[in-house]
């Protein structure tokens, strides 16, 4: 038996899916697109079924990619039963999708969720009445507490749904037009979809041009029958029906949880407290993850890893293994893993905090509060938190872009996050600024953070104006009612995110570490190719490459092969840059803990200008391999990953070159300061102008009742061609 789970976002769909399938789940992608596809199995005694968790949608009209997938899945796949999950505490809007589902001929069952909230609110719902009215079975459940889920499974397993028929009748005027369409299209659902969305709702391959012309003529003719535009007629009729049903079957108690949500929001999203609260909450999350707590846990974690590595080293020696085997194990496999897994505790704290914010309903508020800042750069409010986390670590930041609902926004955010200066880059600034900029070191470090933010924002704007053109960041967001997150769900989300990271670390990353190990621990010494010690990295293949590609780095101010080798090791983890420099300059002692050891060699090897260009390059260039694997996971395409890597390298190179070349001109510093101010002003005004323009662009002039006293310069208003509804809402991405 094949089941499909369909429902609104926030209706508890995923919770029900987890309850139904337990651990028998698999996650994949829908073919050709980048929306997650979850399937799972229900297994009880004598009953087995495959459940597909469709993306959360508000409507079957193909507005976004998610809706298109759900709509096509229901039409084209052989589904034996649709389980429509309906949030009883938000009945009116949830039933809209239900009525659309009734237009299909798929057998269906309604799982009426959140019965606990209904009871808490002291609302009274006549379930049998609703069942009679809709003509399909309605099973009350509370997915979060697993109430009624076994009843639902029992009901599904015992009934034969193949003969179920149901129909939702529209008003007579609509039905007569629908029957015209249906006679031409042969299917009621298609007729409904065509009525509502016109020609783009039809699968073009199935319909001949003559039929199409006939249909279009009919639709044009009948559009005069209705006062409203054709695309509004059916929704209006459905909602009228829903209002009638709600009046009949639902008695709402005016007080209750709704009041609670409103009371919380009176503070959380209030004019004066909203932003300070958001800032403190974010500070708290950061403090937990990157402050004393996180650092303390991490230090124990690293201590444990080091202990294991020492044990392996010892074991390998005592077992008489070849030297390269023990080096492979300690330096390659476990050393690399330690570099990545080392920040797992901090990641888990962040993931945990994210899950809490999401499950409680705060995430939507955060997007609401911060949307304005990001809308100016063409992003949606939901991108704010991921970008903020980027200051700690790119990996959880990139993973959390998953809360952004639109594919284009998700991709843009993912690609610009690495520009934001993460915690691992800080030691690089610390060492260089400390060595060369003395009293100005704080300003220099601060300027690095600003540079990162500026490049991230400008890149986002650039992407939005070029490759993601025609996909304006739409912002229509429901604020769900606050819910107390259940420990089980929060832990589950935390674990799911951590697990996907660990699996990556154990597979793709492992291979990469072995390759990098080979490059840094093997090389020619006195014309024999052999394993090298830690202090011989100069002779390694990596050292060799570093020397060869040094000319490439010359224009951006790299004077020594040490700098190019150090930059390359930053690929494993940005912390390695400082560590490698320490090794290359022959310093014994922990340079990461005690950066001042590096001050003297850096003073000899770098001018302040070279150091600044070096820092800028280290900040902006391709992120560490863990971040790259997270990017691969979220972008879900090698093509996009390659594009991101190339773009980041190019930007890093150009920025570092601009810094170095301009700074080296005669009159050097003075000129560069003037230029920096000038450039800054230009950038600022460009942004400002774009913001100003962006704020007033309309979708089109047609149908705008302001046309006579349009507040826009006429040229902008009329030159702007109407954006095609479908492509405007969700950009089609080729993989």
């Amino acid at each position: 038996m094949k089941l499909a789970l369909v429902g609104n976002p926030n209706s508890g769909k995923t919770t029900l899916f987890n309850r139904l399938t337990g651990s028998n789940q698999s996650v994949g992608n829908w073919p050709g697109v980048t929306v997650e596809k979850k399937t799972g199995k229900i297994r009880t005694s004598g009953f087995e079924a495959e459940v597909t968790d469709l993306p959360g949608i508000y409507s079957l009209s193909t507005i976004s990619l998610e809706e298109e997938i759900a709509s096509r899945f229901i039409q084209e796949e052989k589904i034996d039963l649709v389980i429509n999950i309906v949030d009883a505490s938000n009945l009116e809007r949830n039933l809209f999708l239900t009525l659309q589902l009734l237009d299909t001929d798929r057998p269906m069952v309604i799982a009426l969720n959140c019965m606990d909230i209904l009871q808490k609110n002291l609302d009274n719902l006549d379930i049998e009445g609703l069942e009679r009215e809709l003509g399909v079975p309605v099973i009350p459940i509370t997915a979060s507490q697993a109430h009624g889920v076994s009843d639902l499974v029992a009901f599904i397993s015992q009934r034969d749904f193949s003969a179920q028929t149901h129909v939702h009748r529209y008003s007579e005027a609509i039905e007569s037009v629908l029957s015209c369409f249906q006679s031409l299209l042969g299917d009621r659902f298609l007729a409904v979809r065509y009525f509502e969305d016109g020609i783009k709702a039809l699968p073009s391959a199935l319909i001949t041009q003559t039929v199409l012309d006939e249909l279009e003529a009919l639709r044009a003719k009948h559009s005069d029958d209705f006062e409203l535009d054709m695309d509004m007629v059916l929704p209006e009729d459905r909602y009228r029906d829903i209002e009638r049903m709600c009046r009949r079957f639902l008695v709402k108690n005016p007080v209750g949880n709704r009041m609670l949500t409103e009371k919380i929001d009176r503070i959380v999203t209030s004019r004066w407290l909203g932003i300070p609260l958001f800032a403190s909450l974010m500070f708290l999350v950061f403090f937990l993850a990157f402050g004393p707590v996180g650092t303390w846990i991490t230090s124990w974690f690293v201590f444990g890893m080091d202990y294991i590595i020492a044990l392996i080293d010892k074991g390998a020696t005592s077992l008489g293994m070849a030297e390269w085997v023990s080096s492979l194990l300690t330096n390659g496999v476990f050393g690399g893993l330690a570099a990545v897994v080392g920040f797992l505790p901090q990641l888990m704290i962040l993931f945990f905090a994210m899950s809490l914010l999401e499950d409680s309903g705060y995430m939507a508020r955060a997007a609401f509060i911060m949307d304005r800042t990001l809308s100016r750069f063409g992003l949606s409010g939901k991108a704010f938190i991921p970008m903020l986390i980027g200051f700690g670590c790119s990996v959880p930041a990139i993973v959390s872009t998953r809360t952004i609902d639109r594919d284009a926004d998700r991709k843009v955010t993912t690609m610009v996050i690495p520009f934001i200066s993460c915690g691992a880059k800080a030691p690089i600034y610390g060492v260089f600024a400390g060595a060369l900029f003395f009293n100005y070191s704080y300003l220099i470090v601060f300027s690095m953070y600003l540079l990162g933010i500026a490049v991230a924002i400008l890149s986002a704007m650039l992407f939005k104006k070029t490759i993601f053109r025609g996909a304006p960041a739409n912002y229509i967001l429901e604020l769900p009612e606050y819910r107390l997150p259940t420990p089980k769900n929060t832990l589950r989300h935390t674990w799911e995110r951590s697990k996907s990271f660990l699996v990556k670390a154990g597979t793709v990353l492992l291979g990469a570490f072995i390759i990098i190990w080979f490059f840094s621990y093997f090389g020619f010494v006195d014309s024999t190719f052999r394993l090298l010690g830690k202090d011989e990295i100069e002779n390694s293949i990596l050292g060799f490459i570093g020397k060869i590609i040094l000319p490439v780095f010359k224009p951006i101010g790299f004077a020594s092969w040490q700098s190019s080798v150090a930059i390359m090791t930053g690929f494993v983890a940005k912390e390695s840059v400082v560590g490698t420099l320490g090794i290359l300059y022959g310093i014994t002692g922990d340079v990461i803990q005690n950066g001042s050891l590096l001050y003297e060699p850096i003073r000899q090897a770098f001018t302040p200008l070279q150091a600044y260009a070096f820092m800028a390059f280290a900040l902006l260039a391709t992120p560490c391999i863990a971040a790259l694997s997270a990017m691969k996971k979220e972008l879900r395409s090698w093509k996009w990953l390659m594009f991101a890597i190339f773009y980041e390298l190019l930007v890093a190179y150009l920025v570092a070159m601009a810094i170095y070349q301009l700074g080296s001109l005669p009159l050097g510093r003075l000129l560069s300061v003037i230029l920096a101010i000038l450039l800054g002003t230009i950038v600022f005004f460009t942004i400002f102008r774009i913001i100003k323009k962006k704020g007033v662009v309309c979708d089109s002039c047609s149908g705008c009742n302001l046309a006579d006293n349009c507040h826009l310069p006429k040229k902008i208003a009329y030159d702007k061609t109407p954006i095609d509804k479908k492509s405007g809402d969700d950009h089609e991405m080729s993989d």
Partner: protein
Amino acid sequence: MTLKDISPGESCVIRNINLNNLRKRIIDMGLTTGTLVFVRKVAPLGDPIEIHLRGYSLTLRKTEARMIEVEKSDGVKL
């Protein structure tokens, strides 16, 4: 009059949706003509706005609100 002109704490009734982009989403989420909408608040930075309709809360930007034609209503808070 558009939805953007309604101050927080006031209610209105939807008359027409003049949006092109996002139009269908807004309609399907329940902003059909005749729907009573309560404007709850404006975000701290002045945009987006939060409205209450059909028993739930929805937030949208003023760019979109500007394209939704409404009529002021004395209807009580939903």
